């Protein structure tokens, strides 16, 4: 092989062939690791079902007790209206407000509706309804009260207006735009997308690069004529494809199982998601520059990605009610912008121009992180 004089022109390794060999290798790593596969496909489905069905902030059969001294027609109507609604179910009656309170304290009911004595007879004078609610969870307590109030007011109004002229047309009316049934899935689905995509792309890429460093295979690759850039891109491709599959899974599940509308154009939703996936991949690359072992990569990813995404992206806690400093801080959390864009597109069905700001911010962040991580990656290798 080396008998004749060394040839001047040696075959240059074809980048495309090498690239394909690498993508194949990377796919094998993913497909052969049962734990990875489980995380990749189990996590999205589980989270969707969990958030979609188990963790709901919308009301469902809230246990209600009624306090009334006289079962007249009006109270009867109100009670059956409450019971008929999907939100409340009457679990009993109680003679006094004080006793109702103790029932709530014993966790046997969540809300008590207290009618003033001889409610129907006094309806033009001082008839009143008091709502006692368990506000140990303030958000839920408030919701119980609002729902109950609207049902009670609606029933009484329709009852008394029958045959009578409307005396006091209500001045304030509330209209729940975009989510009239106030389903929490509408709120969670964009949040889960924001969390899962960054989790899978960033965590998986950083761990897989760290694994090569840990096992020493990275050293061998670097001594080979392959460009480091090719190694990195080849690593990203399978995860990118997987993310697209996961994105499709989430969207299909949310549409068919959780009845979340996909109002906006699918093209914009997918387009912005792709930018976000790219951003997550670059973040993963950045993390892998800092971490030399899989465990470190995992911890750093969790620290800098999972926590801010859950706490500061508006996924669970509304950004508007945070202190000003935290609100500013949320601006650097990419998931915040992604989730906001997805909410607008999926639920409100706005056109692309309304999410232009979010899109531009995401593109800017992607370019910045990608540049930093590629620069760092190169210098580290020398």
């Amino acid at each position, binding site marked *: 092989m080396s008998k004749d004089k060394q040839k001047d022109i040696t075959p240059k*390794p074809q980048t495309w062939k090498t690239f394909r060999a690498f993508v194949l290798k990377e796919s094998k790593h993913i497909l052969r690791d049962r734990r990875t596969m489980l995380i990749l496909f189990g996590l999205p489905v589980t989270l969707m079902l969990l958030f979609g069905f188990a963790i709901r902030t919308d009301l469902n059969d809230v246990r209600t007790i009624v306090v009334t001294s006289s079962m007249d027609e009006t109270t009867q109507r109100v009670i059956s209206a409450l019971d008929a609604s999907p939100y409340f179910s009457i679990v009993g009656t109680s003679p006094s407000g004080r006793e109702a309170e103790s029932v709530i304290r014993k966790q046997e009911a969540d809300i008590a509706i207290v009618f003033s004595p001889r409610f129907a007879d006094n309806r033009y004078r001082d008839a009143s309804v008091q709502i006692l609610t368990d506000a140990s969870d303030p958000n839920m307590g408030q919701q119980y009260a609002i729902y109950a109030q609207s049902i009670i007011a609606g029933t009484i109004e329709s009852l008394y207006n029958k045959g009578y002229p409307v005396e006091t047309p209500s001045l304030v009316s509330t209209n729940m735009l975009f989510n009239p049934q106030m389903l929490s899935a509408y709120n969670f689905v964009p949040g889960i997308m924001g969390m899962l995509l960054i989790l899978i792309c960033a965590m998986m890429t950083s761990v897989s690069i760290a694994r090569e460093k840990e096992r020493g295979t990275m*050293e*061998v690759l670097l001594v080979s004529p392959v460009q480091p850039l090719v190694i990195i891109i080849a690593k990203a491709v399978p995860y990118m494809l997987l993310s697209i599959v996961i994105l499709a899974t989430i969207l299909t599940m949310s549409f068919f199982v959780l009845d979340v509308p996909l109002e906006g154009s699918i093209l914009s939703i997918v387009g912005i998601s792709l930018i976000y996936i790219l951003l997550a991949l670059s973040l993963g690359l950045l993390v892998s520059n800092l971490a030399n072992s899989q465990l470190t990569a995992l911890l750093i990813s969790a620290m800098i990605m999972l926590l801010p995404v859950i706490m500061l992206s508006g996924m669970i806690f509304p950004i508007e009610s945070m202190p000003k400093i935290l609100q500013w801080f949320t601006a650097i959390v990419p998931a915040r912008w992604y989730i906001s864009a997805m909410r607008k597109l999926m639920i409100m069905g706005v056109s692309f121009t309304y999410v232009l700001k979010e899109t531009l911010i995401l593109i800017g962040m992607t370019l910045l992180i990608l540049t930093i991580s590629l620069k760092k990656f190169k210098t580290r290798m020398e």
Partner: protein
Amino acid sequence: MSEIVISVRNLTKRFGHFTAVNNISFDVYRGEIFGFLGANGAGKTTAMRMLCGLSYPTSGSGTVAGFDVMRKGEMIKRHIGYMSQRFSLYEDMTVAENLRLFGGIYGMSRNEIKKKTELVLNELGMEQQRDSLVKSLPLGWKQKLAFSTAIFHEPGIVFLDEPTGGVDAATRRQFWQHIYKAAERGITVFVTTHYMDEAEYCDRISIMVDGKISAIGTPDELKHKYQQSDMNGVFTLLARNSTRNE
């Protein structure tokens, strides 16, 4: 003398104030098995990294496979093979898949890879293990496989960084059979080790102490020069003067 494939003059590498490799010069000839000895921290790995095109020398000059280490690192990479200290094949891939991947990395065609795979498996006596995952093989086999992978693309020079760590002397001897075969084919072998029995197997060795080469020659020449009965004695004598902490 036959053709020179590695030639180094006054090669130096500094990290801040620390001089890891201090002004080393040597030549290695085609088909030679060149042992590169030194205690931990003597600068072996740093020197080897410069020769492999992984890091730039601070000063000095050198050529590997006819290419300048300062400017042609990328060209060097195409003409060498490398086996790292840590066993470094992909454990979750089969024997054949590992060979195919590294063949692909070095730009070999599918046909070449196929032919060469048969050859290598036959030589290693591992036809039965073709489709076994690498993690199921014993360490000695893995090391032989890693060596075959490093020379799969028939490089001019192969660099072995402590290739036989963690196996017994009998397994090391088997491993060296493969090194001899490669050298007979004209592949120059540059090997670092701290097993002195391995040092005896080399054609020529150099001993590094504190970043400098303090002795170079055939094992017999060195034993004669330092009046020692084996390489262990030579090494201990030279390393005693080390001021660096191990």
